[in-house]
């Protein structure tokens, strides 16, 4: 990224000055304080930035060969960012960020009302992922990001299709867009069969919670964050409903909140319905709630959720909100100045809502490069292990998928469980130590299986065969160190020599113990989960 490209971020502002005859003139000035965030180049082979960008864009660390390329030729930054952004892994990782908003990934397994369906883990994961699949498919298909709120298609995969009766095109396990065969709400992810089960109907609030979910998710406007105080003691529901219509401090929010809410009752949520019926929109219910309160979008006429999606997509708050969210996903420890939000939102809009373009601007910013170390997200940790060779579809690797899909393990890793813990803990805690110990034990089982295989059949010990030579052992240690810590080290590096000494000492008694120990040392290092 060149300085010239970022010069557009140099913010103009105005101040008043008087000329000699006293007339007022507006003088253009430049705010260097804000510009500092953006006026930067990626020329220094900063491995931390390189690894961080790889994790944030693709969900896994760079490979050893990519580290080598970066160390020898930093000018590849622009090219390699483009290749990463065009990797399908970007769409998947970006969808995971949105679980911080939707909170569906591991929710259904904990929700009592779904216990009676006896869903297996594969079905739970498919249902939990469906809202995020809207994000993933939108990006995979290079659609404008506005389609997230106004797209006409639904995502499905074989497991999900079996539950909801979808017809898929062709074979394969992947998610795909399907053309709905029955009543459907054309409003992007707001037409999800799952989202409104998660954001359930509260019979007492007439979908107001759903409305606030929509405004906070896509417009970054949360009614509950308004500093308005009420005394709710000793008043009945009737009094509250009456106050909503008459009391100014209530009307201020409810005049726009309630008309939004009245289109969000479309999706039913009965406790005794089949799953596919719960996810089925009902024009009957839509009209029922419209009869309660005439729908409206902040004072504008509205009839359906499709209208809602169209309004949101055209609302400048949407572009600003997507900029803010993307920034928060990737730079969680530094807020973005709202003037920067305005400019990025304008560029985002001008690019036809190209999320890749926006992400590239974020990861090449100085603020992104300057941020302090952060904890890996669970999916980034799992993604890194998968890149190391771990196959979570095999018996030896399956348990490791719980890094992402077990609510308890997610929380231990500082992430969310989508029900009780909705904010991530960005600190390295004892929970990480416990979980890294667990990962070590799981990897040991893979090593045990590896040692029974010839070199070409091995998962983790890819650099060594039976009766390993020193050179092979060193190559293996370098490979692990580079893959797990994103450090471009050579065999002569002190850390590698230390590991080799440990390996040599233990290998005389047990090769498994030697490999398991050096791998555990690498896994237990906080660098394993920091970026």
């Amino acid at each position, binding site marked *: 990224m060149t300085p010239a490209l970022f010069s557009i971020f140099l*913010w*103009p*502002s*105005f*101040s*008043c*000055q*008087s000329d000699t005859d006293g007339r*007022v003139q507006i003088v253009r000035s430049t705010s260097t304080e804000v510009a500092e965030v953006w006026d930067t180049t990626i020329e220094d082979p900063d491995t931390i930035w390189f690894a961080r960008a790889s994790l944030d864009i693709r969900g896994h660390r760079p490979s050893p060969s990519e580290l080598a390329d970066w160390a020898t030729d930093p000018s590849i930054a622009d090219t390699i960012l483009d290749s990463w952004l065009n990797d399908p892994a970007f769409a998947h990782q970006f969808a995971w960020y949105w679980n911080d908003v939707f909170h569906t990934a591991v929710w259904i397994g904990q929700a009592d009302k779904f216990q009676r369906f006896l869903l297996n883990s594969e079905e739970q994961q498919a249902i939990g992922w469906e809202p995020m699949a809207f994000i993933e498919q939108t990006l995979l298909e290079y659609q404008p990001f506005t389609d997230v709120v106004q797209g006409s298609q639904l995502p499905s995969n074989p497991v999900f299709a079996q539950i909801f009766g979808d017809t898929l095109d062709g074979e394969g396990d992947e998610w795909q867009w399907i053309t709905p065969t029955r009543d459907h709400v054309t409003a992007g992810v707001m037409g999800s069969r799952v989202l409104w089960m998660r954001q359930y109907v509260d*019979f*007492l609030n007439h979908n107001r919670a759903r409305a606030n979910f929509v405004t906070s998710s896509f417009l970054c*406007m949360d009614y509950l964050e*308004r500093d*308005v105080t009420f005394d709710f003691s000793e008043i009945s*529901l009737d009094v509250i409903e009456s106050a909503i219509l008459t009391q*100014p*401090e*209530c*009307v*201020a*929010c*409810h*005049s*726009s909140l309630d*008309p939004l809410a009245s289109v969000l009752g479309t999706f*039913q949520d*009965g*406790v*005794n*319905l089949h799953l596919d*019926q719960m996810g*089925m929109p*009902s*024009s*009957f219910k839509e*009209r029922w709630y*419209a*009869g*309660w309160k*005439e729908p*409206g*979008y*902040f*004072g*504008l*006429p*509205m*009839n359906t959720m499709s*209208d809602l999606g*169209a*309004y949101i997509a*055209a*609302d*400048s*708050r949407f572009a*600003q909100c997507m900029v803010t969210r993307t920034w928060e996903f990737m730079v969680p420890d530094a807020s973005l100045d*709202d*003037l920067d939000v*305005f400019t990025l*939102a304008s560029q985002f809009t001008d690019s036809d809502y190209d999320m890749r373009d926006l992400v590239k601007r974020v990861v090449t910013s100085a603020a992104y490069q300057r941020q302090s170390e952060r904890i890996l997200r669970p999916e980034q940790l799992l993604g890194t292990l998968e890149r190391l060779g771990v196959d979570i579809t095999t018996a030896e690797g399956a348990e490791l998928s719980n890094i992402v899909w077990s609510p308890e393990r997610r929380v231990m890793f500082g992430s969310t469980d989508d029900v009780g813990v909705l904010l991530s803990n960005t600190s390295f805690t004892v929970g990480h130590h416990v979980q890294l110990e667990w990962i070590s034990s799981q990897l040991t089982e893979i090593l045990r299986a590896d040692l029974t295989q010839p070199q070409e059949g091995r998962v983790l010990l890819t650099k060594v065969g039976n009766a390993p030579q020193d050179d092979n052992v060193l190559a293996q240690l370098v490979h692990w160190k580079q893959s797990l810590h994103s450090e471009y080290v050579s065999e002569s590096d002190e850390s590698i020599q230390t590991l080799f000494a440990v390996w040599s000492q233990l290998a005389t008694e047990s090769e498994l113990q030697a490999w398991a120990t050096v791998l555990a040392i690498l896994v237990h290092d906080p660098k394993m989960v920091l970026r």
Partner: protein
Amino acid sequence: MMVLLWLISCDDGPTKLPVECSEAITYETVGQPFLRNYCTGCHASSLPVGKRYGAPLGVDLDTFSGAKQYALRSYARAVHLQDMPAGGGVSEMDRQRFTQWALCGAVGAELDTPTVVPLNRANSFVVYSSVVDGDFDGEIILQRFVDDDSASSPEESLLREERYKVEEDSMLFLGYQEWDMEGEAVSSVSWDPGLILIAANFPTDQLVEATIEMDGVEWTEEQNWMGIQELQGLWEIDIHERDLEPLNTHLWNLEGEEWGWRTSSTVVLSSAYGKTVSDLSWESQQFVGPNFLNTTEPFPLNVNLEWIDLWMEER
């Protein structure tokens, strides 16, 4: 304009502009987001008097021209006096940015906004039950506006009156009549003894005689439930059993595609959903209905359009 010129006088003038202006502060970036967040729920040009919660007619902030016209007034109320929005809750950053926008000339341009023609909400229903000496006699009459397929605009609707009969373990659809907006009869259908909508054992093969009158021509034909289902495109049924308070039982059938009935009380005991009659599955749920369903007063039989509008406003 004079006010603005006075406001932006600087060092050697009487007053200094209390904000730093920026090209980045426009109607698109600040003005419209602020006004939508806090104002247009009441101050919008499409909102009639009854839905403005006291906002003066004409003081509309949902377009750039309106927002610019009232920019200084909005600033005065939202920032200077801080009595709008009435409940407060505006963040300090929002006030600061809105001040910059309003006092720096309220710059910007009209923004593209989807055009949505509101549905004729008179299409909502009015339901009343026939009450004799204070007792519910089992007959329910539903009056509502339905779309006229031959109409050229949503405003051209038909008024339909549907009649239902509730018996101990079943419910019958007796028929309906439709009038145009001029009060001219358009069509009518009646069934004898009535189509069974709800029954313990659903007789899908029962034939009933339908008397149909349309455009002055009357004929009879035999129909059964499945026939009506196909005719009406039915795919979902919502059934709500009555609560202990049987007056004002409610029932509706929207656009001929869906059927259902619901009690008039605030609590509905059960409902059912299914694509077809044979695919019904039952649910139990608590449901608190809108306030306007709580009345126990029967509605007058002679519906007056103006009266319906008034009634709609009240709720």
